[in-house]
């Protein structure tokens, strides 16, 4: 049977999530005896999500076959991993140090040619952020537990 894989998968994910939250909606505790209480809208939304999710699944059988390869996901997924590590590390090492490391790591992964820029960019960027956020706007920057 031929069908569009990505659409099929997204359809399934949507439907399952919809079902999950619909079940959760029934757990919303409220004192009100009203029909239109706090759990009403969530139930409406999740039910509709399930219906449309099913529609996506059904349509995936009618859709054109997808010829995308998984290769083009490589870069973005690597980047997402890097950024996830970055977000985890900021509360430990502090914003500036984490950012410098992150930019270095990214430019390294991408095999950035220009060595001078490779080194300068993290520092210039951090310096600018410091100037604009901490000095000009007086908005705090995330501090880490170590730094």
């Amino acid at each position, binding site marked *: 049977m031929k069908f569009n894989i990505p659409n099929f998968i997204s359809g399934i994910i949507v439907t399952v999530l919809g079902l999950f939250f619909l079940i959760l909606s029934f757990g919303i*505790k*409220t*004192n*009100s005896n009203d029909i239109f209480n*706090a759990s009403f809208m969530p139930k409406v939304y999740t039910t509709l999500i399930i219906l449309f999710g099913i529609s996506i699944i059904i349509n995936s059988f009618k859709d054109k076959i997808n010829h995308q390869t998984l290769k083009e996901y490589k870069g973005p997924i690597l980047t997402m991993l890097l950024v996830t590590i970055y977000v985890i590390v900021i509360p430990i090492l*502090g914003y*500036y*140090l984490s950012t*410098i490391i992150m930019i*270095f790591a990214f430019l390294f992964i991408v095999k950035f040619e220009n*060595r001078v820029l*490779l*080194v300068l960019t*993290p*520092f210039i960027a*951090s310096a600018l952020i410091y100037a604009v956020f901490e000095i000009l706007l*007086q908005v*705090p920057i995330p*501090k*880490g537990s*170590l*730094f």
Partner: protein
Amino acid sequence: MFNLKKKGSVLLMMMLMIVLSACNGEGNEEGTANGENQGTDFPNKEIELIVPTAAGGGTDMVARQLVDIAQDDLDESIGVMNVEGGSGSVGMTQAANANPDGYTATMVIAELAMYEHLGTSPLTPEDFKPVALINYDPAALTVPADAPYDTVGEFIEYAKEHPGEVSVGNAGPGSIWHVAAANLENAADIELNHVPHEGAAPAVTALAGNHIDAVTVSPAEVRTQLDAGSVKVLAVMSDERHDLIPDVPTLSEEGIDAESIGTWRGITVPSETPDEIVEILEETFVSAAKEEEFIDFMNKNGLGVQVKGSEEFGEFMEENRAMFGEIIPEMGLE
């Protein structure tokens, strides 16, 4: 060879930056371990005042104005940091858990005495040591200017004849103004229709448009409508008349036996803060709040200045807490 040199210099620069950012971070760590030994040379660096609401709002403006005046007295600067969320609970929780060295103070709001009763948060006034009360704004029963009642008594009569129909707007379920309206209900034995809004301002807007029958918010918040002549205030829920509306009687003057309810703002520090430091802060903020510049600012904005020292403020918070403990459970909130 060439590559090694480049990598070496990169490494060197990285180390330099690590050192630099460490210095930046360390500057804020100094002195926090020495909480007990600060004593007489407090303060010797910048103090941080946490404001649990958004920048630009009423509480924020009061805090910034107070800080402006207080820091001249102290010789050290005081920086305001807004940490909003959870009707103030996020900011105040962070403040309660801060280092008890006197370098982190908080502007607390009336909600602090309400959280446990509302189930919002386990935070209570006991998580802090009171420094000073700065402001108090009582609830003011306000109705459209052309309403068929001119006194609280007439309003109550009307409400008794139309149980559950008179709509009273408030700033949100469980907000201080909702509690104030419930307080009135209890004291006058009437049944009102509470209409929650996303803050006091939208509720006042609704009143001005004649979409609801009344609001019980602070005088400052109805002031523009009052001056425009579109609303009238029937009574204030406090022991004394309010400076902004000196012709408006208090509930007790009108023969209604109800607690004084209003919103308030004060300064506190974490509960473990040493007393000597609390005293220094108390002196600073109390005198700042009594300065003419500050009082002028508050008057301009229609906000009530009520100053209490550390001990009195503590008692005040406990009283409020007990009062809310009685009213809130009756309100049938979800």
